[in-house]
């Protein structure tokens, strides 16, 4: 089954053509890295694949859903159920504990507060932070904060995890921790796509997608 399917996708911002006629398929269960120079269109590609933006032309299918046919509400439901995002900036609320930050990610899932907190605790346990539930972000290291963000992304058990430079703000040790987390998640069946500038991170992925000037230039498996 194809988790992601992009056909002839282009995206323009005014005169800037950020993506040109991209064809890309990611099968369920894959772990792919997306590499390429700055400004080449990696983030744009991830936004469109993650339904955060719509393409200027071309078709996008996520988990089998053709997104051009979906309303804002349906698209939101798709994101809530199928996709977890991890960003370079952790986007954690400074006033909330790790548990509440993770539970916040489940707010739009329809679960009760009780269930959200239970699932959040389980997700934090899964990323090795079961003993840090009550810590505020400022009481955590960068690597731990990113693991909280990963826990938030996977708490709803989405089949697809999209990460935009998740190790961009981390040192090599923390980076290795987070990467091993992605590998572990992938081994449980989660499809993972990671944008990275780090050759080591890219090399650790079974499949690499190279983007240049808005086009998918090369794939190496």
């Amino acid at each position, binding site marked *: 089954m194809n988790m992601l399917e992009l056909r002839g996708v282009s995206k323009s911002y005014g005169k800037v053509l950020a993506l040109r006629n991209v064809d890309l398929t990611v099968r369920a269960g894959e772990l792919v890295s997306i590499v390429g120079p700055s400004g080449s269109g990696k983030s744009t590609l991830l*936004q469109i694949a993650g339904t*955060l933006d719509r393409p200027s032309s071309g078709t996008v299918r996520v988990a089998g859903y053709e997104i051009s046919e979906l309303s804002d509400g349906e698209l*939101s*439901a798709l*994101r809530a159920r199928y*996709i977890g995002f991890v*960003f370079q900036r952790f*986007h954690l609320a400074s006033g909330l504990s790790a548990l509440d930050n993770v539970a916040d990610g489940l707010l*739009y899932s329809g679960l009760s*507060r009780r269930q959200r907190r239970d699932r959040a605790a389980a997700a934090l346990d899964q990323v090795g932070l079961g003993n840090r539930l009550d810590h505020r972000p400022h009481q955590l290291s960068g690597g731990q904060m990113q693991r909280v963000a990963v826990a938030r992304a996977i708490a709803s058990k989405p089949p697809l995890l999209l990460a935009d430079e998740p190790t961009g703000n981390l040192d090599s040790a923390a980076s290795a921790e987070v990467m091993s987390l992605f590998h572990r998640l992938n081994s449980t069946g989660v499809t993972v796509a990671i944008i990275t500038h780090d050759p080591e991170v890219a090399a650790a992925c079974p499949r690499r997608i190279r983007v240049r000037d808005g086009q998918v230039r090369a794939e190496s498996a």
Partner: protein
Amino acid sequence: MTTLRPARLRPMDLARLGASGLTARPMRAILAAIGIAIGIATMVTVVGAAASSQEQILRQLDMLGTNLLRVEPGDSLFGKKARLPKSAAAMVKRIEGVVQAGQTGDTGTTVRRNDLISSSISLGIAVQATDLDLLDTLEGEVRTGVWLNAATERQPAVVLGAVAAERLGLTSPGVQVWIGDRWFTVIGILDRMPLAGEIERSALIGFPAAEGYLNHDGHPTTVYERSSDEHVESVHALLARTVNPANPSEARVTRPSDTLKAKAAVAGAFTGLMLGLGAIALFVGGVGVANTMVVAVLERRGEIGLRRSFGATRGQVRTQFLVEALLLSTLGGGAGVLLGALATFVYARANSLPAVLPPWAPAGALATTVLIGTLAGIYPALRAARVPPTVALSTQ
């Protein structure tokens, strides 16, 4: 393939979500809510102060009763004061339902502390002849000394109304005052009589004394009558004919409690100026809330994008910010109601009034703040809903 349907936010989750934006920056929330708090407090206080003043008068009215009527002869055809018959009060007493009646006759003279003071200085005190039943009819009380009796009504003895005594500077009986061209002894001072202000401002002597010492003609100028409550209307209809059979249309029958009722109505009406000030404060407060919310939306684009990536719909983002604006203004409104209630209490205390706040005042205040919050929140909420989900990914 299953259909995609976004989950609904539970009301409690929505409330918590709206509150989270405020608790993240409590100081700003307080400052933003102050305008509305002041506006609501002003309005509640205006209503509370008016209601307290009114309640005071209504309670007085309750105590004094509304069954007292007063008759004056009115003017005759030729513009002269018509005269009431000497036996007016006695005739009134025979009307069915009348419990008590008394009469007074203006003597046209003045009262002074001594004979050295010019007679042109009246101090606004009328010297009136009275029959012995007047005090009973008015349900008045003697504050100090005694009321006239069958003996003293023939003697140069005078009983002073509360205001008259005050103006003469007297607090106890036993002193002499100068009435007409001779000394009278003050034998009593009356309590206040809210239903008969003219008696409060009078020096009262007996009818025989007035005729004997002041050349009074013995005709009353005013008759007071108290009936049982259910007879007030029927007595009212008969009074004019009874006291002035020749020209009933000229007799003027009044109900002193009506004046008090009118006073209560006036006291219950609040001043437009204060309400206007409150409305301006509310408007400014509403603009303050709108402004704070617009700033919050600009600052929290990242949070909005993040929530969109979690699966929040545009509608849910809109609702979140609307709820936040509503909570903000309701916070101000709640504080305003408390402040206004406190101010009403202090005002009532300071003026020795019963503190009264009609229930519709806080209810109306809260309804107003909900309306303001909605109006102030609509634009920021619409802007929040337009923030694209992609801002979550952008790194700047």
